[in-house]
């Protein structure tokens, strides 16, 4: 479980501390406040930590441990050097500290002495990483439609996709488990009801097997359904388990409200089964749905509201209570829209 993420002078953050909850964590904030950066950084540090674990198991020297961090940060954020990740390019140093529990791991990095277009040095402050299970990152764009051959292409060519797409494709590629856990099986059954069929990977291509009739190529399924299919495949092949941290950027993309309700319920159920889920969203509908679900359950939700502080850097509001979550841009926009919408209806009716 990801316990905390402390960020200093990284992209839009001057100083930001995140203490994550064990279940569902929701990040909201207007565009440009760094929601996706938090997800990507948490993910990159998780991937780097598992890379370090492998190197340590191979008794590699300490300086070699830098490589997974540098490589992962570059490819997840798609930057050629760390200069681009530094918030204030004149002073200070970038530092990122992550703490995990079960197993207890703390990983801290500083990127110091950065000159333009060049990383002079980067060092670990504490590198006792022992994570063995890599996290999962689901980006806003679905991947099943271009899955076939994507990993090979990605390795050969410079593509305009960050590493999360490659990693997700690889996570999707494994064979399905003979016996998923009972909780996972229940979720898979729900997913099959929503998709009105089951997803299968055959010959490097995804198909949807409807409850009745012939299989269909996944490209012919609605984009929203492909998102559910992604979740189903990750659960079915064990890439996603209670030991895996799930990062999901804008899960609401391409989902209609009815499907969004289903997704909220599924994520809430998974969180109740011990999955740690960290997602970023713009959707007030999704937030309200989680709030409704949380009224009848004991598992709490942690909210992070990102907003621009007076110094221009992003600040973080943290609360377990949706009612007092203040920085919800979508709420202000919606309230304003209700006024405009009623005026439009009135005008329309008068004509």
């Amino acid at each position, binding site marked *: 479980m990801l316990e905390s993420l402390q960020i200093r002078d990284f992209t839009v953050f001057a100083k930001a501390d995140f203490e994550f909850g064990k279940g569902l964590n929701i990040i909201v904030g207007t565009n440009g406040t760094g929601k996706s950066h938090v997800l990507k950084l948490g993910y990159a540090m998780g991937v780097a930590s598992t890379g370090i674990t492998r190197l340590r198991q191979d008794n590699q020297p300490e300086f070699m441990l830098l490589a997974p961090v540098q490589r992962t940060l570059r490819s997840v954020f798609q930057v050629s050097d760390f200069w681009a990740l530094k918030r204030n390019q004149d002073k200070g140093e970038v530092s990122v500290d992550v703490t995990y529990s079960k197993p207890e791991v703390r990983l801290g990095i500083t990127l110091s002495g950065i000159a333009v277009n060049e990383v002079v040095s980067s060092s670990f402050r504490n590198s006792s990483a022992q994570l063995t299970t890599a996290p999962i990152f689901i980006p806003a764009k679905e991947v099943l439609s271009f899955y076939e051959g994507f990993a090979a292409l990605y390795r050969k060519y410079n593509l305009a996709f960050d590493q999360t797409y490659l990693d997700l494709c690889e996570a999707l590629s494994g064979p399905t488990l003979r016996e998923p856990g009972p909780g996972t099986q229940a979720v898979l059954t729900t997913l099959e009801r929503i998709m009105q069929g089951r997803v299968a990977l055959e010959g490097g291509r995804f198909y949807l097997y409807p409850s009745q009739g012939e299989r269909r190529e996944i490209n012919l399924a609605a984009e929203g359904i492909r998102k559910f299919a992604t979740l189903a495949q990750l659960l079915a092949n064990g890439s996603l388990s209670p030991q895996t941290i799930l990062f999901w950027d804008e899960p609401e993309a391409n989902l209609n409200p009815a499907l969004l309700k289903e997704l909220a319920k599924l994520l809430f159920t998974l969180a109740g089964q011990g999955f740690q889920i960290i997602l970023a969203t713009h959707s007030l509908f999704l937030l309200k749905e989680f709030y409704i679900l949380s009224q009848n359950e004991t598992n709490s939700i942690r909210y992070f509201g990102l907003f621009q502080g007076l110094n221009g850097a992003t600040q973080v509001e943290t609360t377990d*209570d949706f*009612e*007092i*979550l*203040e920085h919800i841009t979508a*709420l202000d926009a*919606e*309230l*304003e829209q*209700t*006024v405009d*919408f*009623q*005026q439009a*209806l*009135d005008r*329309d*009716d008068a004509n």
Partner: protein
Amino acid sequence: MPTETEGKLTFNFPEGAAWYILKYDDRQTPGFYKTRMEVIDGIKGVDLVAGQSPRFSQVLLIEIKDFREHQVELEAELKAGTLLLEVIQKAVHTCAGLYLAACGQHESIPADLRTATLRPPQWKLVLFLQQDPLPDSPHEQTNKKAFHNRVVQRQDIAKKLRTKLKPLGIGSELAELDQLPKNAGWTVISS
């Protein structure tokens, strides 16, 4: 039956339930608020303070906003955020005013309410926001959209009140003629 009228709205509190109603911003019989608080520039107060004596386990801070036939003004205030800011300030200033009145044993506030204020009671703001009825369109879908829009608008207002007041220990609720707080006990009629 204790009764208070604000404009076209009359609030009726049931007999026998020991309701005490304080017209907090009363001009005719100026009390603590008018004489000590409002004289300070920027300090505001709600219309009514109500509770059941002698315990006053819950004290209602009732702010009445009748925007019927003033929809344009309401829309402007909602878009600018001024209405909610004013109501929130009124709630907070009223709690502060009652506390200071209690500390100073001010006689315009009954002893039971002063004691309750220092205990303190459960504070609850009721924003009685009365809007024009929705226009009746010949098109069913237009009526549905307008109804849904009004519901969302009032839910958003309620959420924004809670966001600011809950951390201060003040509950809040939105009310109107046909939607009073659950188990309110009191009623409102319009002339």
